[in-house]
């Protein structure tokens, strides 16, 4: 069922129409097969890049589209509805560009941003480490200053696009007390992606450890000055969480659509199963969850677009939307019954894909911490 959206401009309307065309014709038909075989859809990102959809919220001067988050996130939602790996990939890429856009110098933006936003390169975000997950500030990867720049040594983990990314936005310790943000080229010698993790979902996209062994990174690739890395990382995550909220809503909508279609067609005891209140109420609750989650991320996006503080609201959106996605996808499997438990229908995959949304870019426990601390005025 197409989502009826209230869009502020004709270009937003046209962008959403373009996105729906691409999602329907190019993404949805191939998602199940690629997820099953674990083939990363590099060419789909090329396609999105050529259409100008890989750089929506960033300045036109650097090849972006200067679109408000409200529009970008709805594009992201539609893409995620068709293929979660591509939606999450777009969100991660967008977040990986954020530090350079917001904290880079003009010279740095001039040098790298064009190709990052041009659609032919894909980004990854390297913050987590084996001993530094929720406690990101405990990261140990070192960037040691030498003549030409830094030699980076350490292990990053849970890297979406590990091994397929063209650049990594990476946080490393430049001294015992200071964390800094580096824009690292994917072809840097001494940087190796380990073999992909075996995951329960998002199997079309590799998630790897990233091992750095004295990898040379030029000094001009330092973003935002030494010691500002953790602040930059957390700021990027505020916006990244809005992206994940939109991905979650897209996934939940896809699950709801499947459940609704099935419940209308499937008859038992002589009538459509949606006519039984047990299922009717279940589907009504699914719709309420999807609709309220969408409203929540849109509200946070509008705050961001208006220049208001939005970190707490982004955490609320991430928490609400990803919990909604988990519940809605689980219930969609229930609506389809035995059929839902088979790979003949996509809902079991949706359920597997939903779980990670509650975990990455800050677990939902961390989101509660962010919300609580903000309210406490800490």
């Amino acid at each position, binding site marked *: 069922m*197409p989502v009826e959206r209230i869009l502020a401009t*004709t*270009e937003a*309307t*046209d*962008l959403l*129409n*373009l996105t729906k*065309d*691409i999602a*329907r014709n190019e993404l949805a038909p191939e998602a199940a097969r690629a997820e099953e075989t674990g083939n990363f859809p590099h060419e789909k990102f090329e*396609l999105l890049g*050529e*259409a*100008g*959809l890989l750089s*929506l919220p960033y300045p036109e001067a650097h090849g972006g*589209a200067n679109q408000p988050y409200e529009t970008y996130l709805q594009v992201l939602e539609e893409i995620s509805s068709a293929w979660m790996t591509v939606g999450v990939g777009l969100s991660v890429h967008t977040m990986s560009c954020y530090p350079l856009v917001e904290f880079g110098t003009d010279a740095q933006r001039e040098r790298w941003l064009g190709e990052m936003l041009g659609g032919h390169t894909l980004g990854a975000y390297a913050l987590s480490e084996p001993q530094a997950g929720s406690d990101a500030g405990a990261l140990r990867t070192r960037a040691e200053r030498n003549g030409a720049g830094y030699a980076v040594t350490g292990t990053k983990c849970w890297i979406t696009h590990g091994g397929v990314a063209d650049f990594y936005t990476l946080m490393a310790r430049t001294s015992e007390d200071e964390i800094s943000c580096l824009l690292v080229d994917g072809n840097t010698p001494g940087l190796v992606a380990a073999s992909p993790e075996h995951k329960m979902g998002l199997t079309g996209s590799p998630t790897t450890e990233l091992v750095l062994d004295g990898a040379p990174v030029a000094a001009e690739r330092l973003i935002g000055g030494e010691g500002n890395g953790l602040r930059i990382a957390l700021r990027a995550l505020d916006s990244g969480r809005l992206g994940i909220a939109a991905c979650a809503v897209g996934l939940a909508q896809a699950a709801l659509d499947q459940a609704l279609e099935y419940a209308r067609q499937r008859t038992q005891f002589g009538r459509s199963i949606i006519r039984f209140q047990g299922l009717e109420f279940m589907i009504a609750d699914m719709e309420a969850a999807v609709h309220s989650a969408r409203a929540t991320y849109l509200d946070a996006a509008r705050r961001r677009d208006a220049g208001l503080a939005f970190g707490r609201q982004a955490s609320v959106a991430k928490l609400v939307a990803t919990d909604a996605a988990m519940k809605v996808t689980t219930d969609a499997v229930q609506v389809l019954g035995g059929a839902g438990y088979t790979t003949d229908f996509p809902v079991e995959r949706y359920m597997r894909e939903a779980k990670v949304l509650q975990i990455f870019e800050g677990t939902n426990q961390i989101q509660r911490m962010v919300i609580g601390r903000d309210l406490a005025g800490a």
Partner: protein
Amino acid sequence: MNIVVLVKQVPDTWSERKLSDSDHTLDRASADAVLDEINERAVEEALLAKEAHGGEVTALCMGPERATEAIRKALSMGADKAVHLSDEALHGTDAVGTAKALAKVVGTLESVDMIIAGNESTDGRSGAVPAMLAELLGWPQLTYARSLSLDGSTVTIERETDAGVTSVRAELPAVVSVTEKINEPRYPSFKGIMAAKKKPVSTLTLADAGIDAGEVGLSGALTQMVSSAPAPPKEAGQQVTDEGDGGTRIVEFLSGKNLV
């Protein structure tokens, strides 16, 4: 090479399509409206011709105000400008009336070398408008093109129908209608979308185009829809249990349908 592409906004074939109860015309408000897929291919073919031979591509659309979205899509794909014939008196116009109205609008445009259309729309499906338009303009018609090539002032197509494939050639100006095999249309891009906002769209009423109101609309239509009913739901297929005679029964079934 100045090319006019006929574009039509139709209900999305993915959404539920209905006829209105009162006059059996298409209920355009009830479904998502999109640029007809076959028109995307017509636009693509016009853009390819323009890219190879220069010139200008004009999208011509007859339809209600809402059709501006379909026009914008043609422009964002790369058409240079658009003409939108929009008048409430057009409601219910049949194929002949549509061809007459379009011929009038084409007459207001300067030096048109070729008109490219889809072979039939996904809503009305009369498949007659391109041929009628050619007849009214006195131009050659090259319909059901699965390929198109231009050489100087000559256009050649491969015409593919159930009867086979034929090569058809004509001097320009001419009307060409294309099938879904002609090409794969490009997607617009963000840049194309932004450029489209600045491209000229002239909106014409019947009077602007010099169209006689008596020849269009429901009252001017030569054909009339007198009743309509939704297609019956699909019936469950017939199941044959093989009890050693499966092969025979399949042949019986096929010969009953005159398929063998």
